[in-house]
């Protein structure tokens, strides 16, 4: 269970370029479900994903994971929690150029101290599952957009997280590739993982993947789908 209580995020506070990306958001996301944050560019979807996943701390308010306040955790504990609990799929793939597909996928497990063979075996299995079995040694700059996105998904899964956060996962893909990626996300959802996707791509909402849609504008939630009942009550 992920809860956000009166969460706000302001960048460059006190400066002339001060900017509020998220304002007083209350949100409750139930485990094992697929939730989508929808809204135009600049509506605060990405920042909200970052707040949920512990990539950044709220300027005010609380973020709770399974009842535990994670917004005030020291960096070390927050990082450990982020590594074990969340898998991130970024908008621009964010793969490291010059490294192989396999090395990129293994990256999140590097600081975990897990045995190399075990991590490598899991990475190869994930690549196999995602149709990238023969691409393990290829440098990431030579991948197509669809391949790069699947590598990013494999990387997000290497630590077997309970929650997958995907920021605009179809933004740089054509329709066919988008459908492929959405099918993969649907599989993850079917495995019982919590899926939180930010998008304004109609394909995402038409695919039947998302169970709850949260509309955002100007950093606020302006409407929420059926499963967002508790949010609505607070609103």
């Amino acid at each position, binding site marked *: 269970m992920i809860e956000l209580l009166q969460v706000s995020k302001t960048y460059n506070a006190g400066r002339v370029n001060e900017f509020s990306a998220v304002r007083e958001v209350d949100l409750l996301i139930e485990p094992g479900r697929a939730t989508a944050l929808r809204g135009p560019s600049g509506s605060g979807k*990405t*920042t909200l*994903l*970052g707040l949920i996943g512990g*990539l*950044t*701390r709220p300027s005010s308010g609380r973020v709770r994971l399974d009842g535990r306040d994670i917004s005030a955790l020291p*960096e*070390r504990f927050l*990082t*450990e929690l*982020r*590594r074990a609990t969340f898998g*991130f799929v*970024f*908008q*621009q793939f*964010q*793969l*490291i*150029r*010059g*490294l*192989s597909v396999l*090395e990129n996928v*293994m*990256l*999140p*497990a*590097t*600081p*975990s*101290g*897990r*045995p*190399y063979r075990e*991590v490598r075996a899991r990475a190869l299995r994930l690549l196999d599952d995602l149709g990238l079995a023969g691409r393990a040694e290829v440098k990431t700059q030579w991948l197509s957009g669809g391949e790069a996105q699947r590598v990013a998904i494999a*990387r997000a899964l290497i*630590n077997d997280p309970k929650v997958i956060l995907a*920021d605009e996962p179809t933004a740089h893909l054509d329709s066919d590739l988008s459908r492929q990626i959405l099918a993969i996300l649907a599989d993850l959802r079917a495995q019982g993982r919590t899926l939180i996707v930010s998008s304004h791509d109609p394909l995402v909402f038409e695919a039947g993947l998302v169970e709850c849609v949260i509309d955002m504008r100007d950093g606020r939630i302006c409407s929420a789908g059926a499963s967002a009942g508790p949010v609505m009550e607070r609103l």
Partner: protein
Amino acid sequence: MNNWIEKQRALIDFSVANLGRRRGRNLGLFLAYTLLVFLLASVVLYGDALRREARLLLADAPELVVQRLTAGRHDLAPEGWLEKLRGLRGVRSVEGRLWGYYFDPAVAANYTLLVPSEAPPAPGQMVIGAALARARGLAVGDVLSLRSFDGKPYAFTLVGVLDADSELVSADLMLVNGVDFRAFFGVEPGLFTDLVLRVANPSEVRKLAEKVLERLPGARVIAREEMRRSYEAAFNWRQGVLLTFLSTLMAAFALLAWDKASGLSAEERREIGILKAVGWETGDVLRMKLWEGALVSLCAFLAGYVLAWLHVFYADAPLFTAVLKGWSVLYPRFALTPQVDVAQIATLFFLTVLPFVAATVVPVWRAATLDPDEVMRE
């Protein structure tokens, strides 16, 4: 413990892969680094080896040398002084020495003519240093004619060339008979260039020197320890001069290293952001960069030090001969004894490796403390 080892192994694996990504940049840095360590280590190794060589040679030198002074200048000592010194308690032996300098206009070099106390050459014969033999192109059996004090030619037959092991002090040496020496320089019988004392108990050298001065008020007494210090000072000074010149190179390298190691590109900052976003702590990023810096600097240090070792002990340090051995027409050729000095290696290590690693880590630390959500917002 296993967990820690696995983690370090994974970080090293990643660091190696990361170094391979920027091959050109890291290779350039490695080469510049190796060159710096090579130059510094060459100077230090060579200077230390010379000092050690001088110490070994002086170990057999007499404890005290007594010279006569006239008007503050070195003068020939009368034979009578030998008797005066033999009576001193604690003196094991006293000898008069005959030696002097000769300028050879043919090669514009100064020679040292010496009458050895043991087994001097027969009259008319001469044994010379190896460097001198090279400079004059002489071999055993040749006749060397020099101009004596009164301008007349004086011929010596060469009967031997001194062993190269002692070349540091014998490069310009000519060993002759006492009769020839006196005739060549016009030194009257009963006079010596100076006197040498060997002492029974080395701890009494200072006391004995005082006693010598009491008996011979017009004399100058030079202790072996003072000669050793003079050599040390000379080599230290030369090494210091060279290191001063090299300091400009070090400064240039520091700038290069700082620029190469610390100048984080936008790409590198983005990558640090990705690592943090996927679950790396600031400490993990720093450890990875530390490994990277350590791998480059340790390899370069090792390569530079080994090259310097070969340069000094196997190639006779052609880059620094002129400065460290001294400016001379007759360069001694001698094999320095290789020796490992842990303190010397540690000093070089701390002077070169630590600043580089610090230059690598500081800017990374700055970048790694940023919020990872910057990656999300790109």
